[in-house]
């Protein structure tokens, strides 16, 4: 059967959920062969095998951490050459997209980014994407080379499908370009203990209506009651109330969780661009005319300072 190359996003061997989702999609196209790079690469094998990887290619070298992106492109290119896959799938993270893009140039292949679904088609994989702030749905395919496709988190279920997952060391020789951009230092972001924004099944966001950094604890408390990630609108981020890494929208992160709860967010087009593909949308806003209410499955016209704590208490009580 045809093989599909899957780029593994992991932290010291802990595979991140979007990669497991990729394996589900990869199995629709062929046999997944996973590529894991850097420290802990071999430790990814068990979970990858459990989710369908027939083979796990690994490579560890200091270059992956010391230089930006290009060493990983060299490795993916080596894997592409070794496997001759029918498609290359990469998680749609900022780095994932850059790796995929540079590989595509090198192997003279087209690229599709931010797919939200993937099916086998007569002329290769067919990718579904959301366009123009999700007001359109497009179906695209690659017309030249090996399809290189990046896939957004939450695009497929994680399914167990045990396979051999035999670990094989991949030989990688680094290009001259590999050492072009040096990583002088790396400061890990402090963990909040909450799910990653782009991967979370539930996102609770706050906007201008939260009215100050000191009030964001209300949003966080609701998020924690639901096991959700915390998002913020551009207005809240620009005002300095919440970090930019939590911004949802056109110039921030694009999320598509099962449930999105917008609190004190009017729903400007820039924000909608980042959350409109959420499955269920809920809003709390005291302005009945706020455009966010055009999107909601359920909306409360009311003061978030009353509604949000009450909702949080109720969720906590029900969870008992």
């Amino acid at each position, binding site marked *: 059967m045809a093989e599909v190359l899957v780029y593994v996003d992991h932290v010291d061997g802990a595979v991140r959920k979007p990669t497991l989702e990729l394996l589900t999609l990869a199995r629709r196209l062929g046999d997944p062969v996973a590529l894991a790079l850097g420290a802990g690469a071999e430790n990814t094998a068990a979970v990858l095998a459990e989710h369908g990887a027939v083979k796990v290619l690994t490579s560890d070298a200091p270059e992956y951490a010391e230089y930006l*992106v290009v060493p990983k492109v060299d490795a993916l290119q080596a894997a592409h050459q070794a496997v001759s896959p029918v498609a290359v799938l990469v998680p749609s993270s900022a780095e994932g997209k850059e790796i995929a893009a540079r590989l595509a140039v090198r192997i003279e292949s087209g690229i599709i*980014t931010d797919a939200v679904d993937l099916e086998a088609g007569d002329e290769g994989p067919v990718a579904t994407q959301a366009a123009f*702030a999700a007001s359109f749905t497009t*179906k*695209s395919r690659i017309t030249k080379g090996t399809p290189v496709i990046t896939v957004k988190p939450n695009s497929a279920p994680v399914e167990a499908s045990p396979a051999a997952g035999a670990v094989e060391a991949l030989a990688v020789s680094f290009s001259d*370009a590999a050492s072009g951009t040096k990583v002088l230092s*790396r400061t890990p972001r402090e963990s909040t203990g909450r799910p990653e924004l782009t991967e979370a099944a539930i996102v609770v966001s706050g906007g201008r209506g939260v009215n100050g950094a000191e009030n964001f604890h209300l949003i966080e408390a609701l998020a924690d009651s639901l096991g959700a990630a915390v998002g913020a609108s551009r207005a809240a981020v620009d005002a300095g109330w919440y970090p930019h890494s939590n911004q949802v929208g056109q110039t921030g992160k694009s999320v598509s969780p099962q449930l999105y709860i917008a609190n004190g967010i009017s729903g400007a087009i*820039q924000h909608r661009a980042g959350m409109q593909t959420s499955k269920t949308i809920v809003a709390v806003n005291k302005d009945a005319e706020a455009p966010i209410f*055009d999107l909601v499955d359920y909306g409360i016209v009311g003061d978030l300072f009353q509604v949000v704590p*009450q909702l949080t208490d109720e969720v906590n009580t029900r969870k008992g």
Partner: protein
Amino acid sequence: MSLRIVVCVKYVPDATGDRHFADDLTVDRDDVDGLLSELDEYAVEQALQIADEADDAEITVLTVGGEDAKDALRKALSMGADKAVHVEDDDLHGSDVMATSLVLAKAVEKTGYDLVICGMASTDGTMGVLPAILAERLGVPQVTLLSEVKVEDGVVTGRRDGDSASEQLQASLPALVSVTDQSGEARYPSFKGIMAAKKKPVESLDLEDLDIDAELVGLAGSWSAVDSATQRPARTAGTIVKDEGEGGKQLAEFLASQKFI
């Protein structure tokens, strides 16, 4: 020695307008007003700041697009860029990111550069991969997604705030940089800047000038194809409730009915 900066910008349909696809499934650029992509304004701003710090620098703004795309160049010139290059050719219609990046790479090389600066993504296609592709094509280091950037003694340094870590990066020129919307507020053109922009040179190039075969660009020369574009049906109207004191509880009831609690 003069620092040659090329800023790649894009003319995009206004996101607050009603954006559509044309019959050939390319972006409909006639149906809605266009403007300089907001995320490229940050690139122009950083170019201006880098130029201010340099002894001697020249900023060229570059775009690929139809006649209207000149508006994006004018905006960048009125912010303070020195000159502009406009690549326009009928055969470019429908070019995907691979074809467009090929044209940009040739135009950047023809213009001459020490530093290329891009926005992090366009606000229409939103792929965010063009900077990396351009760096690969030009064979120069990519120093991308920077929220802070500095150029000194032929070296570019910057801070990249990723999902899991914040990284300090460094590369020697020539290099390609992309900046995020956190890199610093973009300036508004002054009246003086707008008047001065009218006199600044805008060079027009076509495919022949860049020595690019027409078969390598446009819809036919692209390596990806859109087979269908369907407008999403408007969401069916949801339930909207006015809070009379029990709003939070009602919302909890809804979430429970949807199995979120």
